[in-house]
């Protein structure tokens, strides 16, 4: 379907590969064209990470903020006019809607996956939803990458996958709150993770 290809192309252009010093890493989302990349805290645990753009350019990303509770990290790269994503409203999502994920699994750049919204986690102080849960298979490499709706608007940043076939994304509302908030605001966030450690696996490559 031509439309699927269009969505994949647009999302791929705004998805980066984020690599740690050794092997491993995951994906990231170009959130602002002025050089702001969003990824997972567990994908970029150090002060810097290598950011590989879809066009092949490689940049150094400096971590400027990190929130382990919500599994988010903000990276700054020295570039302007990057192809940033269109950001959607995660609070407006409905169960059943189509969602798309782009990731960087082993040896493949910008691979597309499709699913639907499965459910939502509990509400928090800053978002009507704690997680966007999707009925979508997310193998290693999708961590930190975008989850978009059928119009190509990014409504989440993929964080982890459950063994039963659900993918968990940080809602775009939470990402916006993280980017605009001060470090102290993390205390307001819901502290209970949706899955016990034994039930989940990180979808960053290790």
């Amino acid at each position, binding site marked *: 379907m031509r*439309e699927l290809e269009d969505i994949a192309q647009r999302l791929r252009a705004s998805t980066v590969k984020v690599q740690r010093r050794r092997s491993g890493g995951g994906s990231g989302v170009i959130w602002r064209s002025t050089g702001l990349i969003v990824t997972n805290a567990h994908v970029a645990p150090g002060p810097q990470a290598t950011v590989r753009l879809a066009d092949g350019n490689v940049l150094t990303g400096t971590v400027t903020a990190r929130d382990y509770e919500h599994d988010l990290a903000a990276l700054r790269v020295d570039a302007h006019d990057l192809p940033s994503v269109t950001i959607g409203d995660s609070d407006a999502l409905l*169960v*059943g809607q189509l969602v798309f994920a782009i990731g960087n699994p082993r040896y493949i750049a910008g691979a597309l996956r499709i699913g639907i919204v499965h459910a939502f986690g509990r509400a928090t102080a800053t978002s009507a939803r704690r997680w966007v849960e999707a009925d979508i298979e997310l193998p290693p490499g999708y961590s930190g990458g975008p989850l978009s709706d059928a119009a190509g608007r990014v409504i989440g940043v993929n964080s982890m996958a459950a063994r039963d*076939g659900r993918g968990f994304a940080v809602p775009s509302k939470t990402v916006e709150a993280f980017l605009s908030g001060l470090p102290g605001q993390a205390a307001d966030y819901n502290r209970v993770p949706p899955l016990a450690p034994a039930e989940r696996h990180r979808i960053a490559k290790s």
Partner: protein
Amino acid sequence: MLAAAHNRPSGLIALSRELADSVRQAGRSVVTVRGREGLASSGVHWRRGVIVTADHALDRGEEIRVELPDGGTVRGTLIGRDQSMDLALLQIRAVGLPTAQFGDAASLRVGHIVLAVGRHDERGLSASWGIVSAFGRRHASAVDGNRSIYLDLTIYPGFSGGPLVAAGGRIVGINTLGSRGVALSIPNAVVEDVVGDLLHEGRAWRD
């Protein structure tokens, strides 16, 4: 984009909307059934005051509570069970709860996109999607639409007893897990047979 250039609405957006609408529409008659320790199951308001759910969701002697979409909880009284079909019937006082809107299971074809809808915890409605994979054994009846529906979708824990939903939010079957964990759905006509038997006799006659 090509669609925009021709002023046609995006096919993907239309499909996305239809899927979400179908979940919401079918979900109006989906309840939560708590009839055992631990995991609750889903159920469907099949006829007024009658809930169809999964037989394996009920324990003997356990008080059955049915949680409604509007948040209320009512007591469920066991009418009958059909273990071979994994179906059970409950009676409830159903003020204001819509009954299921049925579709024609006989018109389903391999490859049709379908949804499994569940309501089994505090997150409310949940859903998975996939396609009709194959048709299975014919249940005793000369009527069309009486074959088990095999599905390429995930039946999540708590989804058993919930509806299989086709286009327009129409309910076409009740979902369960077959042997070796295969996802399958009992089509409407067969569920109707079981409902009729259980209401009449309190048990089902199966050959």
